[in-house]
């Protein structure tokens, strides 16, 4: 009797907390009925691959948003990292190129936080526009370095099998990009929930004043937050260029809005302090599945935009209602 009641309660709370699970379930159900191919192994692995780049960026963005900030510069970072990485394959070889790419992402993130900290711009709005400006800067650097042209990984004279493995290889049943995702998720989950740094980053968004009065170094936390975002964008960028085997200087376009939407739709609120990387996984899943399912259902690309916008607006609104 009680267990039944408790089960119901748990179910209710899960559903309330993770409204988005319901949305995903409906989407999956409808699509698999109309288009059984949806459930094929091939499609699922496609979805996972498509998931790859965005989830990396969104995971990083989760930390930024939980910390009470926002980061529009990820689009620029992705483009810059893509261009620089491919550029360096010829010069330094694939391994070093990859490390240089990751380093650039990290450096961009730290530069963002340095700008915020030195100017004391610690509100979300200030962060919004400073990172927007930095996005232009990083994007411009990508264009300048590449001269505007797209470069293919396989043009390189050096070995590029590392990128092939990341982009299309698989380890056992799983594709490499999925494994990278799992590793990143695991690390970030641990970081967020089991480490000092993770707790402090969350505190930064929860109540900066209270945290400071507890003797916690908020500035270091802000640097850390943006460094993670930059690094995750770089990883996303590398997964992306490995997947498509080419690096265009505008490859990151649109990733910032999609990442923010994925995070917010997942239920991490813009007000900071609340949310988790797991939620972002769900949010990203919804965003990716939405276009996958609509493609399979034969929804025209224009209508897809409308539906996507409408679903996002409604999801955010419902989430907001639930909280108030």
């Amino acid at each position, binding site marked *: 009797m009680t267990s039944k009641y408790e089960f119901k309660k748990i179910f209710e709370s899960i559903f309330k907390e993770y409204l988005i699970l319901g949305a995903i379930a409906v989407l999956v159900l409808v699509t698999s009925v109309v*288009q059984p*191919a*949806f459930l*094929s192994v*091939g*499609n699922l*692995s*496609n979805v996972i*691959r*498509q998931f790859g*780049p965005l989830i990396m960026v969104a995971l990083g963005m989760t930390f930024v948003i939980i910390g009470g900030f926002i980061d529009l510069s990820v689009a620029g970072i992705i483009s810059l990292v893509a261009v620089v990485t491919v550029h360096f394959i010829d010069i330094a070889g694939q391994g070093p190129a990859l490390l240089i790419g990751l380093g650039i992402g990290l450096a961009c993130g730290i530069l963002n936080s340095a700008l915020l900290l030195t100017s004391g711009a610690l509100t979300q709005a200030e962060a919004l526009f400073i990172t927007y400006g930095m996005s232009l800067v990083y994007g411009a650097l990508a*264009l300048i370095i590449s*001269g*505007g*042209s*797209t470069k*293919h990984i*396989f*043009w390189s004279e050096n070995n590029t099998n590392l990128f092939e493995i990341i*982009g*299309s290889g698989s380890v056992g049943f799983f594709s490499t990009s999925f494994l990278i995702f799992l590793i990143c998720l695991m690390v970030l989950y641990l970081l967020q929930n089991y480490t000092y740094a993770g707790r402090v980053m969350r505190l930064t968004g929860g109540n900066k004043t209270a945290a400071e009065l507890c003797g916690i170094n908020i500035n270091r936390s802000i640097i850390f937050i943006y460094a993670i975002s930059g690094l995750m964008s770089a990883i996303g960028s590398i997964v*992306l260029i490995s*997947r*498509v*085997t*080419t690096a*265009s*200087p*505008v*490859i990151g*376009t*649109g990733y910032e809005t999609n990442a923010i939407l994925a995070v917010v739709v997942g239920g991490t609120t813009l007000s900071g302090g609340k949310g988790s990387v797991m939620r972002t996984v769900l949010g990203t899943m919804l965003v990716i599945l939405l*276009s*996958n399912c609509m*493609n*399979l259902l*034969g929804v025209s*690309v*224009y209508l897809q*935009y409308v539906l996507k916008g409408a679903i996002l607006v409604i999801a955010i609104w419902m989430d907001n209602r639930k909280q108030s």
Partner: protein
Amino acid sequence: TDGTATKGNDSTSTNGTTDAPVKVAFIAQNMATEAMAFAAKEFEKYGADYGFEVIILDAKGDAQINVQAVDNAVAQGVKAIFVTPNDINAIIPSLQSAKEAGVIVGMFSSDLPEGNHDARDFFVGVNDNQAGEAAAQAFINHFPDGANIVEIGGQAGHDAQNKRHDGFNNKLEGTNIKVIDYKATQQWATDQAMAIAEDMITKYGSEIDGIFCHWDNGGTGVIQALKAAKMDNVYLVAVDGCRAGFEQVKSGEQSVTIMQNFSNMTKKSLELAKDKLDGKEVESVNFIPLDIVDLDNIDTFTAPEW
């Protein structure tokens, strides 16, 4: 200020005896796309051969900035502008005023719509309609018994995308080649083309005989999707003839690329502008022929530089 050209260049003499190069402008629709970046480079390279100093203006993929760039070029007192429009209707009013100011207007790559040709002096380029048609022709040639084709478009709403789409589908009308699905991307983004290709492969599987992708770099993504699905018999056609397309054809991953020769287009444009400046009559419409490049004839072409 030096008092020149308060309103275009009618106040300056065009006797051409001075040694200073004549200023002209190339207005690129978006320097962040490799085609335009390459075209701009070609203009800078060959400009001097015709006695021009070429300034490059970037419309950043925005129809509004495109118009601003035209105005800006006129204000800088250029003698001629070469314009790649983001939106062929949108650019007309500004071109008219440029012409009124005495600037020679050459359309590059895309022409103005019928009935508005007096808003420019000449057009040099490939016909994107024809590019679509050529792609269709490639399919017709390859599949005499009919086939199922998936079309993956460029940026929804973009002029080249629209024309390639229209030309392709008009040409196929009434043939036994069927376009079973069509999706356009939101930007000319390789990963979006790839995602669409993957979804289409899921949906139609081996039903797909061929894929028409609107641009070679998008084709790169399609190739990755096909490889992952182990479908190596799909006939892939893409437009541009850039280095990526060229090498993909060479390696057999892509079947056909429809090549636009930007070097020739550039030289032709510069030549026409010079003729016009010298007071000669010039041809209004100048198509630079498109080349249909496949594995059989690829060795007859010089590899593109972009």
